[in-house]
């Protein structure tokens, strides 16, 4: 590793002044070099300061368990040669820089807004944006959304089709943009917490844990072990509920009713366990900077352990139904293949990456909090199809059940929370959390007075939407809903 970066551990902060600031060409080449060594871009954002604009890039070094921080000094012209041309992982980040930061990554192969309603450059979608179009006889275009038939989030999908075959899928999101990063930087403290809870409604614990870790790192707060443990318990319950719901939804999409109904009910059971812990089915109000608000009393632990034995049996039965049914396997296998090379190139994360043979899991690679003591090895499959994404979920369900059964009886004792305290000036912090959907990253930097000068949220969906588009190429358009469900990405998390 060269001296051009600062290696950080997950959930820690460093002094901004200690990071060597490079001119843009050097910044670019050292980031690309780190990428070529197997690094993954987890965050890229600007910080406006009195001495000009700095560009920060966090690159995860999975093999070493560190996150490399690079800083580049952006000139007053606010342009630089884009990373994306060499490193497709950066595509969404650089589009965001262009849209929300007024910074132009020159030579970006497809510079279009990530979330158009907030676009600063004056271009609007769909009025004067030309969607990617395939030409030729019998090529037709199917436009779906942003308003959908089911109760799902808004997003616009453009398919270029030849008969039933999809030549290309373009996904335009942004209908859920709420300016969460701005609120996280400027809003008063109670509202910031609520904002972090609302980034993606199905990943409340993942986002609030990342938010809290960043706050605690910036303030240097010593978080009690019990709080870390309860966050992990809530995170695994969140994973269980969502994975169970996803398996049910996958069954529903192929019209396999028994598994759809049973998994739907089981999802509710896991949500209810979370409700018993903190009073909210989605884990809102549990995690705060400095610790957690609610304790797991012995009654809840006993009840949960008892419930888990029943739930484990029911889950095994239902998974047996789903994976044992030939008609279901016929739909799952070979559908929507995301090849490992593509997944690596795009920096896909979470179960979608692990189903394509990319063994990345923050809990294993960059353990923070309770995961430093409880090992959770990544569950991987190689085929990259809908089957693999379903099976990885089922393997992770079993793993999370085991995690809870092993750890609930022996949670560390002690305080639930400490005062987070005030943020130290001139620090930059990063936190990675393996939410059920994948790597959830929050990063923030403080200015000389301890106020936040930058806040960046990276939902796993930012990386993965492009993976879905690639997985659809050459597939059947009638398989899109199934393929989409197997990724189950967040629109709100992407749009922030």
């Amino acid at each position, binding site marked *: 590793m060269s001296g051009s970066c600062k290696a950080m551990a997950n959930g820690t902060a460093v002094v901004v002044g200690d990071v060597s600031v490079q001119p843009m060409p050097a910044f670019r080449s050292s980031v690309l070099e780190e990428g070529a060594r197997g690094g993954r871009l987890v965050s890229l954002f600007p910080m406006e300061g009195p001495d000009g604009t700095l560009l920060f890039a966090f690159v995860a070094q999975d093999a070493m368990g560190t996150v490399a921080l690079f800083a580049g000094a952006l000139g007053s012209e606010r342009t630089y040669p884009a990373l994306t041309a060499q490193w497709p992982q950066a595509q969404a980040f650089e589009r965001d820089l262009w849209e929300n930061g007024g910074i132009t990554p020159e030579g970006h192969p497809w510079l279009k807004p990530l979330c158009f309603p907030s676009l600063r450059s004056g271009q609007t979608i769909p009025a004067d944006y030309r969607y990617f179009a395939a030409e030729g006889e019998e090529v037709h275009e199917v436009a779906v959304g942003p308003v959908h038939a*089911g109760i799902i989030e808004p997003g616009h999908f453009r398919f270029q089709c030849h008969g039933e075959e999809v030549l290309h899928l373009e996904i335009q999101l942004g209908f859920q943009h709420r300016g969460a990063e701005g609120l996280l930087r400027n809003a008063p403290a109670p509202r910031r917490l609520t904002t972090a809870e609302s980034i993606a409604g199905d990943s409340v614990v993942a986002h609030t844990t990342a938010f809290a870790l960043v706050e605690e790192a910036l303030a240097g707060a010593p978080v009690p072990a019990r709080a870390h443990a309860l966050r992990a318990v809530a995170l695994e319950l969140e994973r269980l509920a969502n994975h169970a719901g996803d398996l049910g939804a996958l069954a529903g999409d192929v019209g396999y009713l028994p598994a759809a109904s049973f998994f739907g009910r089981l999802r509710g059971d896991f949500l209810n366990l979370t409700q018993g812990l903190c009073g909210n089915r989605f884990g809102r109000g549990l995690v705060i900077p400095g610790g957690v608000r609610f304790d797991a009393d012995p009654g809840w632990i006993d009840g949960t352990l008892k419930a888990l034995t029943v739930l484990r049996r029911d889950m095994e039965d239902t998974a047996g139904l789903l994976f044992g049914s030939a008609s279901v396997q016929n739909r799952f296998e070979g559908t929507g293949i995301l090849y490992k090379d593509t997944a690596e190139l795009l920096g896909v994360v979470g179960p979608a990456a692990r189903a394509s043979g990319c063994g990345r899991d923050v809990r294993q690679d960059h353990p923070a909090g309770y995961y430093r003591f409880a090992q959770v090895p990544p569950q991987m499959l190689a085929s990259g199809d809908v089957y693999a994404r379903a099976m990885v979920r089922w393997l992770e369900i079993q793993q999370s059940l085991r995690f809870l059964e092993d750890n609930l009886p022996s949670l560390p004792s002690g305080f639930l929370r400490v005062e987070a305290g005030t943020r130290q000036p001139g620090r930059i912090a990063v936190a990675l959390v393996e939410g059920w959907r994948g790597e959830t990253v929050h990063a923030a930097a403080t200015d000389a007075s301890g106020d936040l000068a930058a806040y960046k949220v990276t939902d796993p969906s930012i990386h993965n939407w492009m993976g879905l588009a690639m997985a659809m190429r050459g597939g059947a358009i009638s398989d899109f809903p199934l393929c989409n469900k197997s990724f189950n990405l967040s629109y709100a998390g992407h749009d922030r």
Partner: protein
Amino acid sequence: MTLPWWNVGAVLPALLLSPLLLGLMGKTKALVAGRKGAPLLQPYRDIIRLMGKGAVYSRTTTWVFRAAPAVSLASILVACMMLPAGPLDAPFAFAGDLVLFAYFLALARFAVIAGALDTGSSFEGMGASREAAFSAFAEPGFFLVLGVLALKQKALSLGPILGGADVITWDGQTPPLVLAAVALFLILLAENSRIPVDDPTTHLELTMIHEVMVLDHSGPDFAFILYGSALKLWLFGAVLVSILLPGGGPAWASMALFLAGMAVVAVLVGLVESIMARLRMARVPQYLSLAGVLAALAALLLMAGGQP
């Protein structure tokens, strides 16, 4: 064509009871999934509710779109007139009417497809192309099944083939008739857009076949479509039940048996929908070819059986 006027009564069971089949199916699926499900009579309520509503027409549509539901329902009603119901003879019969029967069903389909294309929506176009392609695979099988029955009964009219006094008897021809019945059941699932070919309950437009073609119909038009599909299900069910049920006995008993048979068909479809996933779209032609092959095999067996 010399049939008494009261034979019009043979259509009544279809007219009155066909929506109940949909209700039975829904109830079966709900019970298997551990839900209570919608009331048995819900399809009637839906149709009545829709009849009381106004219809919305897109500015891009023409008379083709407006005519489609009525033409489709009328064609299916005419097809109903050719079908005997248990012991009751069909109100309308002549030699060769089974071809007309099949083509009235095709006309109903054509009307819906034309209406769907008239909207200019890419979804509906997709559904129309699927429906047209898959019906081309389903039709040969259906004709072969009718051919087997005609051969067996030595008649070219649905009335004498399926019902009336001269009911289908199995007399030593079990294998071809069972094969024909299985083929017909496979075709019934496909023609009535049930799992494993189509999923009538999905909300995912991109995966639909039949439902996506009727997305733009509303109010009474949609009631026509809904009622038409109930009747179509009844038609296919009636042919199937007529193959499988023994004849003879007093009229009331055979009528009761016929109606019970129809209920069993509905429950059977509900069970299939409860335990199977949908086929991949690209596999549907294979599935329909299977039905065609079974029907062809039935025809061969029947001819080779040397039955006088």
